């Protein structure tokens, strides 16, 4: 699965239709007696269908419906394109009473740090994070490097001696740059805007290093070797892969499933949505999906999530200043 890709494929203007939850009875009876929501909630996903952000939105939306956590269904709408600009425009068209929300991740912060769209943190109210995951840095299995230190030593001796597959201005680029700035090395880049591109370039020997979602790495099974994990603690599925922090580099990156509402949404509504999401992320089925996909299921309430995002944004802006 293409966990952190900005674009699914270079040619991918083909688009994909809006979609939503399967048909089912609209549960009017179970939920608490309150006015919100009074119609289906539109969840805008700024990517084409099929990726992690889309899948998580659908699974959680379906859980909310089947468990009756809200008395209306959630309908996922895909609005890919323009680094989220399409999705934000779509959100602005909709209601500001909580019936139009977004499910995004920290690519939003990168778009803000790169000053791409006409949106900023002030345009949103954060509903919260429903878990997230961290990536690994990977070389080919037959590579001469067995540890991150080998790799960094080589790069320090041969500056720009290795090729890193990144999409400039995407998460792999920023995460790689954070480590490069911290450890003091430099790589050459080759454009790879999707997880699929990175995979084919590394496996085919056209790039030496690439960033993958831990689940993508595990699914590949052979041909790749992970050198470092960017989470704060080691991943249980990858007990032998050290974290960057352990190796003495103060770099960590966790990409959350971030739920956002327009800035003017009433607080009670945001709280009602947050409560439903918190209950959904605790559900055993969702937890199982997260575990199988090396994601951590957790709940971060809106304010905390916003504070974390603010801090991340500042870090990303610092990186953006060095790459522009």
């Amino acid at each position, binding site marked *: 699965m293409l966990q952190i890709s900005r674009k*699914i494929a270079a040619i991918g*203007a083909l688009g994909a239709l809006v979609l939503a939850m399967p048909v089912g009875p609209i549960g009017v009876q179970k939920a608490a007696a309150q006015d919100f929501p009074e119609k289906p909630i539109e969840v805008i996903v700024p990517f084409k269908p099929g990726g992690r952000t889309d899948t998580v939105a659908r699974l959680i939306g379906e859980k909310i419906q089947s468990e009756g956590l809200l008395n209306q269904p959630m309908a996922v709408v895909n609005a890919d394109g323009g680094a989220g600009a399409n999705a934000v425009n779509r959100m602005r068209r909709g209601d500001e009473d909580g019936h139009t929300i977004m499910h995004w991740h920290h690519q939003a912060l990168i778009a803000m740090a790169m000053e791409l769209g006409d949106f900023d943190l002030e345009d949103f109210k954060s509903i919260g994070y429903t878990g997230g995951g961290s990536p690994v840095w990977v070389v080919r299995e037959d590579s001469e490097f067995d540890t991150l230190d080998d790799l960094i030593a080589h790069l320090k001796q041969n500056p720009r001696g290795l090729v890193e597959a990144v999409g400039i201005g995407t998460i792999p680029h920023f995460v790689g740059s954070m480590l490069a700035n911290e450890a003091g090395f430099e790589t050459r880049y080759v454009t790879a805007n999707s997880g699929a591109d990175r995979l084919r370039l590394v496996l*085919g020997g056209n790039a030496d290093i690439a960033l993958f979602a831990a689940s993508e790495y595990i699914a590949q099974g052979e041909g790749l070797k992970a050198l470092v994990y960017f989470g704060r603690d080691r991943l249980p599925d990858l007990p032998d892969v050290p974290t960057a922090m352990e190796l003495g580099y103060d770099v960590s990156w966790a990409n959350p499933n971030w739920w956002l509402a327009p800035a003017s949404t009433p607080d009670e509504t945001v709280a009602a949505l947050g409560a439903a999401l918190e209950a959904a992320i605790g559900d055993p089925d969702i937890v199982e999906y997260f575990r199988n996909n090396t994601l951590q299921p957790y709940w971060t309430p809106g304010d905390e999530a916003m504070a974390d995002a603010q801090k991340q944004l500042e870090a990303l802006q610092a990186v953006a200043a060095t790459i522009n």
Partner: protein
Amino acid sequence: MLDAFSLLFEWQNLLFLFIGTALGIVVGAIPGLTASMLIALTLPLTFHMDPVSAVTLLIGEYVGGISGGLITAILLRMPGTPASIVTTFDGYPMARQGLAERALALGIMASVVGGIISWGFLAGMSPTLARFALQFGPWEYFTLVLMALVMLAVLSQGSMIKGLLAAALGMAFALPGIDSSIGQARLTFGSSALLAGFGLLPVLIGAFAISQILRDAATPRQEARLDMPTSKLPIYARDMRYAPKLLRGSVIGTWIGLLPGIGANIAALVSYSTEKQLSSEPEKFGTGHEPGVVAAESANNASIGGALIPLITMGIPGSVTEAILIGALTIHNLQPGPLLFQNAPEIAYGIIAAYLVANVLMLMLMWGAVRYIARIVQLPRSGLMAVILVFCVTGSYAINSSFTDVWVMIAFGVVGLGLEYCRVPLGPFVIGFVLSPIAEEQLRAALMMSDGNLLEIFGRPYALVFLVLAVATVAWPAIAVRLGARARADKAEDPS
């Protein structure tokens, strides 16, 4: 593998495959709606199905969707999917000469043969081919696409200047949006709506379907003639002479499909151009020449089989449609990749088996319906056009739930009409639009990788082959004239 087939013939899986294929054909045939939309739409429904049924449904939709596009491409000159752009070049002129059924029959036959040949590659040599395709890096992608772009020159009808102008215009319209090489806005002039660029589908629907409808509206009388439906379908024993062309188209289609990010439309284009280059009567292409339809349709269908190879062996999706397929698998906790054959062989082999059976079902469905389908052109044009317009609007809107795309579609309808009025061909325009972003991104990626050293291309044998072919394509007309002159001279000297 045999287990997978027997699993497939369980009634519910076969039923889903049938439904998927039929839906795919219908949706693929409607201008404005495409296979990837249909698959995205039905994805949520597969949450509750067992994984094999889910996969068979989606594969059926994929195959049906790419094949169905030929119907409207031939009958109305409106490609139902991007993959059938090239089919309009010869298919529509055939329909206008009263050979609609013949064009459809040839297209269907070529599609099925293309599908089956590429299935052979998929079932027989997936791992080898996938390893081969992986060696292709930015240089190879760039030179391959450059070769296809150069073939534009041979595609142009009429004035060479206008053909090249069309291609340059198409490329220029592909520029606005986020420059994928550096992730920053380019030529958006501050508009956030332009940040997403002009989408392929709105441009395609606009330039072909909308402009065609506007043009046809001026001449309401029936233009396409249809000879009375014959009792026999127009496929003959002499069509065996197309066997080498079918094989060539299918192999080209499969191999181009292998490369992630290079789609069915490019496969059809390369196959068509190659056939035209090799032909002894290249001037007939574009006027309703049967090999044109055969080349385009065998290649675009074969590219699906090719694209499934990296998908099931490596978990690398070649297109949006396939990315959605992968999404469908992960929802069932199946991770596509090399481990799929060990962890869930029934899925891995199920995909392969479903692809073959979907092609057979597609043949049965389209073959059975071809004579009725051909009568579309006899429907009252007024109602048909109004309905197609509604589908175009709904389809463009539904891509990203955005009216911007609908306005883009209308604008390109006007552009298409204007270009045709000035006799600037639409084919090179759309192909320039499709190809130049890939060529630019890949060239810049190659230069990034090599620290700006263009000479590195000489260390890449496949890239060199493509480059030489591209140069040869440009030089070929001159060489052909020379050879022709020499042959005549030889004849004059030696009259025996």
